[in-house]
């Protein structure tokens, strides 16, 4: 089920009504859990089975970890299960193909088996959330919940299940442990965030998508300015798509009195690459920092080791996004530029990196990039300029409201205090989003 569909528009009020009718913590958690099962099962029932099965086994292992003295064994077993499932579904064919290619370089011919499996939606997100929980429990930084209901609700909470934010037990679990009471301010804020997320997804991302598809598939024949526009459009497509989804996730959660983490903080206004990574996909980078970078030694073991740790984090982060060398290259590129003093050109550096991310293969990425810098290809742009106008609107809105979480944070003074003005504004924005929204495109981050 997608957030930007009529199905979700019907699903959400039904769950909202049932949830607030429920009088106890347990009943509220049951409503959330059942709703999450419907939400995920709507896409694929077998994949729902896989997710629930993985969760149940993790629950079992964590409890064994509490009882037995071989805590580490149960923790490792749990992680092997989580990353094993992820590896089989997401990376098996990639590694099999590459191993076969590598062997053929040495003249060995290997018929590697390949699996025709569908990639369960959101598997990378819930695997990371589960694994963080397991490690936190092992390190005794978190008291594991004894309630299976609470545990499943925490992992499967539908607003953030399929595309994050990747939540930590410390933040989310306690919220499922106490009675939620309806908070008018929080719920209103949730709806505003959903509306702003819809604007970013439908108006910005979907309008850029068609142009990006055209430009990337015809990059060999297009002019230099068109290719730069294509990269710019993708830069905002992925931002509108993913941050729009995150806003809708945070907003939906707020309707249920749950606060989940912000995943984006106006990343394209970053003043350095480090700053960019503090603002982009915040929960994923936080995960890598806590569970990879710091355990590897972080910045405590000298400059060389630190550089290696950064490289490891970015390569893994690239691979997390998909089983394709383009993502690995994207990760390597970011590791390379992470420490460069790129203050005034941070945005350009990020934009160039997105070419690796969007390209279907490495040849396409190199071809695209080389044409982007080929002065012989200077000619008038050959694509629609509408997304450019929409991007300008988005950037100026975010710039004007850069201290706020979203542009609908009204001041209770002057014209902004009038409820009728606000209602009109919401109607205008909603109708404009429907009317000018591009063709419906699936959220990019669903594939990860």
């Amino acid at each position, binding site marked *: 089920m997608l957030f930007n*569909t*009529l*199905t979700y528009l019907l699903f959400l009020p039904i769950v909202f009504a049932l949830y*607030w009718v429920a009088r106890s913590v347990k009943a509220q958690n049951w409503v959330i859990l059942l709703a999450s099962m419907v939400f995920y099962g709507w896409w694929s029932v077998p994949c729902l089975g896989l997710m629930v099965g993985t969760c149940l086994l993790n629950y079992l292992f964590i409890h064994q970890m509490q009882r037995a003295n071989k805590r580490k064994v149960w923790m490792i077993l749990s992680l092997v299960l989580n990353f094993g499932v992820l590896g089989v579904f997401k990376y098996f064919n990639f590694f099999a193909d590459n191993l076969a290619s590598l062997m053929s370089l040495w003249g060995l011919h290997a018929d590697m088996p390949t699996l025709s499996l569908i990639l369960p939606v959101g598997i990378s997100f819930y695997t990371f959330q589960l694994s963080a929980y397991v490690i936190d429990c092992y390190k005794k930084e978190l008291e594991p919940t004894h309630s299976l209901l609470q545990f499943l609700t925490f992992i499967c909470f539908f607003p953030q299940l399929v595309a994050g934010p990747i939540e930590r037990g410390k933040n989310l679990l306690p919220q499922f442990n106490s009675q939620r009471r*309806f908070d*008018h301010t929080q*719920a*209103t804020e949730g*709806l505003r965030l959903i509306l702003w997320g819809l604007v970013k997804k439908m108006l910005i991302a979907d309008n850029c998508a068609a142009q990006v598809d055209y430009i990337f598939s015809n990059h060999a024949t297009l002019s230099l300015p068109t290719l730069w526009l294509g990269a710019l459009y993708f830069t905002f497509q992925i931002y509108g798509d993913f941050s729009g989804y995150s806003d809708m996730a945070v907003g939906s959660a707020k309707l249920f009195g749950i606060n989940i983490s912000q995943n984006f903080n106006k990343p394209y206004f970053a003043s350095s690459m480090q700053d960019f990574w503090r603002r982009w996909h915040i929960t994923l980078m936080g995960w890598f920092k806590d569970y990879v970078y710091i355990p590897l030694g972080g910045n405590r073991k000298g400059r060389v080791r630190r550089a290696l740790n950064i490289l490891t984090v970015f390569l893994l982060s690239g691979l997390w996004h998909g089983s394709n060398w383009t993502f690995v290259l994207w990760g390597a590129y970011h590791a390379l530029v992470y420490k460069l003093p790129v203050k005034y050109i941070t945005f350009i550096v990020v934009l160039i990196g997105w070419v690796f991310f969007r390209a279907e293969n490495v040849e396409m990425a190199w071809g695209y990039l080389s044409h982007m810098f080929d002065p012989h290809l200077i000619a008038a742009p050959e694509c629609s300029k509408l997304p450019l106008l929409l991007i300008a609107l988005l950037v100026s809105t975010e710039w004007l409201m850069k201290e706020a979480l979203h542009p609908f944070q009204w001041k209770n003074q002057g014209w902004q205090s009038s*409820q009728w003005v606000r*209602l009109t504004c*919401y*109607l205008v924005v*909603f*109708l404009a989003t*429907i*009317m000018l*929204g591009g*063709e*419906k495109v699936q959220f990019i981050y669903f594939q990860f």
Partner: protein
Amino acid sequence: MKSFLIKIGCFTLALLAILTAMEVYVESMPNIARDKHQWMLQHSNEVKTLVLGNSHNLYGIRPDQLGEGAFSLAQQSQTYRYDQYLLQHYPMKELKTIILNFDYSLLWEDFESTPKEEFQAMRYRIYMDCDIHPRLSWYGFEVMYMPLVTEKLRSLFTPGRNHWDSLGWATEYTKEARLQDWDDGKNRAEANTRHDTDIVSMNEGILRNIFDYCQKHHIKVILLNTPVSETFRTYEDPRQRNINTQVLNRLLHDYPTVNYLDWEADPRFTSDDFYDSDHLNHEGAQKLTQSIRCYLTH
């Protein structure tokens, strides 16, 4: 909670009021599907030759030159599913001949199986009383209403682009109106290249139902492959063509009375006859219609 629900209610009511007003306004605008439906309600029993099919027939065949009792129910992107529906929906006592498309892509097309095309089914529901998808079905609800709102709101700002005559021939594709680089055969052929063979099997079944119906009612069937530019043909996918040929051979073998006119590469049609790489302009339509008439009368 009460104040929150009141605010949500106000927003929803205001939104519904605006959408309803727009709906009423947009539905009152001229519309080819509704016009064809109205014409058929009044004259269906006078129809002797019925043109069905997609935009290739809609722009390429002129019923006014096809002889008495000819009418075109062809529409943009019309699939075989809706050809069958329209053929069986109206009483046509005098019907002698139907003309269907059999072009490069039609066998591979189905609104219901193609997410980007799903909304096209709405026009049959809204304007032609088609009950394939009731309004209260899930498809009717999710697929036909939501894009309908979007499409309709958009059409407020781009009305009246289409023009058609009283017998259902769409008239806006003239040589004067065509673009400088009209021969976009590469893009058009690639856009019309599909991969879902399940749709092919389904459409073959629908064609068989249409042929059975026509045999039973003594209606002559003409399958027409309309002319396309050389560029378009160059970029056609050989695999897709091959499957088309296999299906066609099976159909012609099982239904020997069906007539197939393959004029896709007919040299009589020159660049002056095209609006774009796969649609004819007025001159081309005149030429094609005369050829069909000639075929029907001899």
